[in-house]
Structure formats: structure tokens, C-alpha cells
């Protein structure tokens, strides 16, 4: 059922008073719940919930060949599946554009922030490197899958352990070392998506709020080393266009919110 006009009107009326249907303020996130290690066959894995929205993420690795333009680096590949288990609005079959976009946005967020030291995942330059696959599955969509998926990917990577690699047989054993992945911890970037509904900027939207928003903007934000925000990737989604003032306002809200929430996010990621 699409959001009826009378409902959209109500959502706007509430927002004018700074209220949302579930009692939250416009810049308030739902309760975040994290469970690490949901698959003991994965290098790293977790389940993350923001309110009722739940996502599973897992990291698997294998040995492959490097890409021609990065002969000395391992490969990262992030994918997402938004399947019909999570919502009556999702269909069976290969990923549709929503899953494709989500996977690519999360991928960029991790890649551009240089969270993973891909050079350290090179075994033999030009010949043999580690492939890191991060796979994300939507389990229940109650809005804001993008941010939940982003956090789940980070937590799965942060908790991952390098598999045992037998140099002689060139095989990966079914065991893990105690070593984490080569990560640049200080480069951690958290994906935050801001949604605009009429004149209001909202974070962590419900499905209805997502649907009536004119645009959304996802930003991967980390620490610049001096306690300030550093944006390493951006994606504007949906059609709505942004004025200069709005962009300025958005960035102010982003900075303020990021300063507030990043310490909590770091705790979820690093424990």
C-alpha cells in the first residue's frame, strides 16, 4: 500500500511541530542493537538493528588475482540482497536497482575512506591477492536499510579474522588466525543518510517517511584526525533538487549529528 495523501499530510503536520509518529525527534535514531558472529563459517559477521529494521552482514575471503590497475592490492567487493523475506515490496530474483545502489554506496563508503588497507592484502604483486567480499542481507525493512547496512558492513569487517592460508598447498584452511583484517581504524567512516521531507531534514526514517521524502543524501563520514568531520563519499538519491541554502543547512545538521553519534558508533564497531 503506498503512503496515502492524508497520511503524508499528517506526517508533515507533525514535522512542523518537530514530532514523528513514533515520538522521535527529527534528528533521533532508533535503538541500535548489534549481535556479532551470526555465522561461524564467516571471516566476520553480524546482525544490526535500528528499531525493527534488521540486516545481516558477513565477510568471506579467498585468493584471486589483482585488477590490472591495482597490481599490488587486494580486492574489495560489497553486495546487498533486498529479498522478499524482508518486505512485501521486495521481489525474488537478481538484485534490483535498490539493492544495487545500496551495495555500491556502502562499497564506496568503505573504499574511499581507505578503511581497509588493501595493499596489505597483497600476497604476491601482480599475481596473488586476497579478495574480500562483504555480503549484506535485508532481514526486515522498517526503513533506512542503507544506514543499517553500512554499519553492519563495518562491524563485520571490524570483527573479521584472517583465514589460515597454507603457502605450500596454496589453499585456505577452514580455520582462522587470531589476526584481524589489515584495517586503518582511524579511517572508520559511518554512513549517515539525511532525508528531506518538505522543509524538514530527518534521519533514520520509517518506510513511510522514506517514501514521501523528496530526496535523500547519504554521506560516509569519519574523523579528520582532529575531531572534525571528514566526508569521504556522497550519494544523493531520489529526484528532488537541493538549493544552496538547503545544502548548507544539511551539512550543519550532519556535522552536529555526527559529532554526537560517532562515539556511539565507534563503540558498536570496536566494542
Amino acid at each position: 500500500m503506498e503512503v496515502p495523501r492524508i497520511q503524508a499530510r499528517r506526517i508533515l503536520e507533525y514535522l512542523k511541530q518537530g514530532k514523528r509518529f513514533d515520538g522521535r525527534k527529527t534528528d533521533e535514531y532508533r535503538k541500535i542493537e548489534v549481535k556479532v558472529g551470526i555465522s561461524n563459517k564467516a571471516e566476520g559477521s553480524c546482525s544490526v538493528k535500528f528499531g525493527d529494521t534488521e540486516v545481516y552482514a558477513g565477510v568471506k575471503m579467498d585468493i584471486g588475482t589483482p585488477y590490472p590497475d591495482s597490481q599490488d592490492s587486494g580486492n574489495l567487493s560489497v553486495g546487498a540482497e533486498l529479498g522478499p523475506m524482508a518486505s512485501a515490496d521486495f521481489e525474488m530474483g537478481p538484485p534490483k536497482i535498490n539493492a544495487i545502489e545500496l551495495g555500491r554506496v556502502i562499497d564506496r563508503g568503505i573504499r574511499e575512506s581507505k578503511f581497509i588497507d588493501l595493499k596489505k592484502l597483497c600476497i604476491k604483486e601482480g599475481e596473488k591477492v586476497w579478495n574480500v567480499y562483504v555480503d549484506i542481507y535485508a532481514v526486515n525493512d522498517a526503513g533506512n536499510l542503507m544506514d543499517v547496512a553500512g554499519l553492519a558492513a563495518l562491524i563485520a569487517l571490524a570483527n573479521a579474522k584472517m583465514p589460515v592460508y597454507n603457502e605450500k598447498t596454496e589453499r585456505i584452511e577452514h580455520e582462522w588466525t587470531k589476526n584481524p583484517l589489515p584495517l586503518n581504524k582511524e579511517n572508520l567512516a559511518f554512513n549517515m543518510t539525511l532525508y528531506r521531507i518538505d522543509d524538514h531534514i530527518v534521519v533514520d526514517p520509517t518506510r513511510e517517511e522514506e517514501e514521501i521524502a523528496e530526496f535523500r543524501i547519504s554521506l560516509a563520514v569519519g574523523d579528520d584526525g582532529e575531531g572534525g568531520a571528514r566526508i569521504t563519499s556522497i550519494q544523493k538519491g531520489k529526484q528532488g533538487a537541493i538549493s544552496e541554502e538547503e545544502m548548507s543547512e544539511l551539512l550543519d545538521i550532519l556535522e552536529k549529528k555526527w559529532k554526537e553519534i560517532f562515539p556511539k558508533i565507534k563503540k558498536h564497531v570496536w566494542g
Partner: protein
Amino acid sequence: MNKKSLYTKREDGRAFDELRPIEAKVGIIPNADGSAMYKSGDTVAIAAVFGPRILHPQHMQNSQKGILRVSYDMMTFSVYERKKPGSNRRSQEISKVIEWALENCVDLSEFPNTVVDVFIQIPQADAGTRVAGINAAVMALAQAGVPMTEMISAVAVGKMDKTLVVDVNKEEEDYEEGEGATDIPVCFLSKSKKLALLQLDGKISPEELKKALEMGRKACEKIYEAQVKALKQVGEERE
């Protein structure tokens, strides 16, 4: 049957007719009409049921009764060697045999032109994924209020060399001594006790198979109790 079996003790110390520890929970996916998680040892299955709901495309509709549609898949990170995302022939075959099994216990005669969709995902695999999937799916179907004649329970019986065991784990699945491992997933209806799913790969004599089915039937009775317990806890949970 005169030669002694090489498999005298189970790796994890279980008795031959002993199940792995079971964990079952109903109502884990709020958007679904019914949902459940079933865990047997290290194998975890989650299931979500949507329906009865309108079936598209129209040409697939049955004007006499609703249809059941099952989709089983494994998450890429559920196994040691990453599984490529998306369905493959194995998952399609498993979806079909699960569908055939579940059709025995649902009654969709009052819902013509509809579909009941069952989605099964495996986040962590340690053998017996299809049977764990069925066990989760049945609880999800019940919670979804789908009319059912009875419940259904499934288990993977195994034969390690000449020893019959119940609830095979991954190590046992890979057993290679003597006659090796024979994997026999089975599924029994709770009231009629009829066999709703049977597959086998390995080697077995008709006599051994009869014994295996008997062991499977007994094991399924215990699994049924765990499923009923999980369902009854739903009503009592007031958060």
C-alpha cells in the same frame, strides 16, 4: 551386516539417536505474516511466510485453492567456501522438495487464487540445512495463521559406514571411512506419521533404510515438541 561398523563413536559425543541442541524462536521478522528461527547445533535457518495473498501473475492462479511457493537459499557467508549470491540449481531443487513436503500439511482450499510464500534463508550452515529450513518454515506457517491439518518435522538421518545416526553434522557429512557417509533427509507429518520428504545420497540396503526411517520418525517426534514449545511461547510473551 556381519562386519562391524568403523563408526563407533560420534565426534561430538552424542548418542546415535541423539539430536543436536535445538533453539527455536517464533516471530523474528515483524513485516512477515509469520516467521521463525530454527537452530540445530550450528545450523541456523530463518523462515518468513507471507500470505495468503494475491498471486501475480494471474495465469499462475489456481481457481480451486491457494498455492504454496517456497524459496530456499543460503547466505554467501553461511559456509566455509563462499557461496555465490543468488539461487542456483541446488537451491531450486531444495525449494521444490520443501514445497512438496509442506503442501502435505497446509489447507488452502478456502483461499483460491492466492499464494502463500515461504522464504527460507540459511545464515550459518553445518549440515542439515534443508531440514532446519522445513522446521523453521512450519512454525512460520502456523504463526501466519495458515490453515494446517497438522505440523511437520524434519531431520537428516545419516549412515556412517554401517552406523545409523540421527541429525548429521558437517563433520559426519564428510566422513569417508568404510562405506563413507550416506545422507538421508526425512520429514514426517506429526499426526499421520507419514513421510513427506525423502532423499538419499550414499549407499544403503533396504533393511538399513527401514531402520533409518524408524530412527528419523522417532527423532522428528522430539523436534515436534521443540516446535510446539516455541509456538506456545509466543502467546505467553508479553513485552
